[in-house]
């Protein structure tokens, strides 16, 4: 459809106005607040307070460490499933079942999914009860309310994102390249390592970035599955607004979280692109 410039401007008016008013402006207010003194002047005091405090650093490192492990787990579990779905699951119905099982959890609230894990991992949960009944352990294990349970819960929530991201790239991989490698005598494992896997890397990179970014900003899972024993930055941010009433510190923590996430993603992309250029 041919659209004149006047019509394009008319169509864009609403979306741009909304975006500026309710996305750009709120973010600017947030960033502004982080540089604001209580009396209204500008200051860096919030940043020196946040960056000079070992407690905030500890929470941030904890957040990043959890997000790192979540990305690793999502890759290790998600890649085989994506590969299987695209290359081995021949029947349309099997593929359909897999996609339904990938999307249904995505359509369910984080709380409901965390609740499922409480039932499974809790002190009187399925895992402990079955281990107790077969006599492998004598007292229930404290699986819940640890870093491990946060990683399990987050990896569970973000796994579909990784799988679908890898699937979308694997689906576009030119199969004749894989067949050529096989015809030239490469075993399936070698054809995979030399052809399929490198071609699927963009999906892995995109998927792991989304998974990492979403784990870093996750609030619900850490607060439900940590039992207050593990501190992460999103919980700190929320507390500043609701418990300690320091929106200036909350805003500063938000900006720091955003900046660190973007920096790490940027560095990751840079390393990845250099490797691709070297390989090419």
């Amino acid at each position: 459809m041919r659209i004149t410039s006047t019509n394009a401007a008319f169509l864009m008016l609403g979306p741009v106005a909304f975006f500026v008013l309710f996305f750009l402006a709120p973010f600017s207010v947030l960033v502004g607040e982080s540089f604001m003194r209580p009396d209204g002047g500008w200051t860096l005091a919030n940043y020196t307070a946040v960056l000079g405090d070992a407690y905030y650093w500890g929470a941030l490192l904890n957040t990043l460490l959890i997000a790192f492990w979540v990305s690793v787990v999502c890759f290790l579990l998600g890649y085989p499933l994506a590969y299987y779905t695209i290359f081995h699951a021949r029947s349309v119905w099997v593929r359909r079942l897999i996609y339904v099982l990938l999307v249904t959890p995505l359509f369910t609230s984080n709380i409901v999914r965390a609740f499922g894990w409480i039932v499974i991992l809790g002190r009187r949960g399925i895992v402990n009860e079955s281990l107790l009944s077969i006599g492998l352990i004598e007292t229930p294990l404290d699986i819940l309310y640890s870093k491990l349970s946060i990683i399990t819960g987050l990896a569970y929530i973000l796994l579909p994102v990784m799988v679908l991201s890898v699937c979308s790239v694997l689906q576009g991989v030119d199969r004749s390249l894989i067949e050529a490698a096989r015809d030239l005598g490469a075993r399936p494992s070698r054809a995979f390592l030399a052809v399929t896997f490198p071609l699927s890397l963009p999906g892995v990179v995109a998927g792991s970035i989304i998974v990492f970014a979403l784990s870093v900003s996750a609030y619900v899972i850490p607060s439900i599955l940590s039992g207050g024993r593990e501190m992460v930055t999103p919980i700190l941010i929320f507390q500043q607004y609701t418990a300690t009433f320091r929106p200036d510190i909350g805003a500063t923590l938000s900006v720091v979280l955003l900046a660190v996430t973007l920096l790490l993603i940027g560095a990751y992309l840079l390393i990845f692109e250099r490797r691709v250029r070297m390989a090419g």
Partner: protein
Amino acid sequence: MRNMQQRIADRLGRLLIAGISWVVVAYLALPLIVVVAISFTTTEYLRFPPQGATFRWYWRFISDPTFVEAFVLSGGLAAAATAAALLLGIPAALVFARKRFPGSAALSAAFLSPLVLPTIVLGAAILQYASALGFARSFWALFAGHVVLVTPYVIRTTLASLSGMETTTEEAAQDLGATPAETFFLVTLPQIKPGVIAGALFAFINSWINVEVSIFNSTAQLETIPVKLFNYIQFNIDPTLAAVSAATIYIAIIAVVAIDLSVGIEKAAINTTADTRN
């Protein structure tokens, strides 16, 4: 002989991948199955496998007005946010797909950025902004945050449908004298309808399940169902919670079936969730 060993090794490799995949699929399904199962237990506490079968916890949930109000608020909010997302997202996608202009790539990236930005930061930003303007912790603050959050889904699926569509019929209509509006409503919209429907469903459900944006702008009187569940789970873990949670799972399943019927789950899942690099 070596050949045979290799064939066996390759076979085992395939079996291993299939094995891992089905374990992962089970891992995806397990928590949801557990929640649905325990919502029918006759015991006063959570029990898996459930004992007996009863609808008691569903009745308790339906007869609790605070849960019903939260359901109504969430449904209304999600419907309103989806309607707004369609009004904003379809025109934007149409321009992105059919018109190149300086900065169009940057603008579309900006519109899609709420998908990767920390939602907790979006929630905090909306709260501070709304406080400054005097509408903090109101329906409209929730609405503004949710529209920002869900519009990218509509843009993404609509854009995917528009780019996959033949433009010759549009051009023929315009050549025969149809106005742009006539062309859009009579020629374009019928062809991109499945993508629009899928986008609307993704938008609806992502508003419906959101906690991070909502929790900043909620009050005791203004709680969406996920926020209500979040506050409830801190103090009570009981079969009523399981019944409410199971009800939200049924809604997720209905949405998935609706998407499968409109565009096919495979296409919708890949177009909407996966990253679009073009």
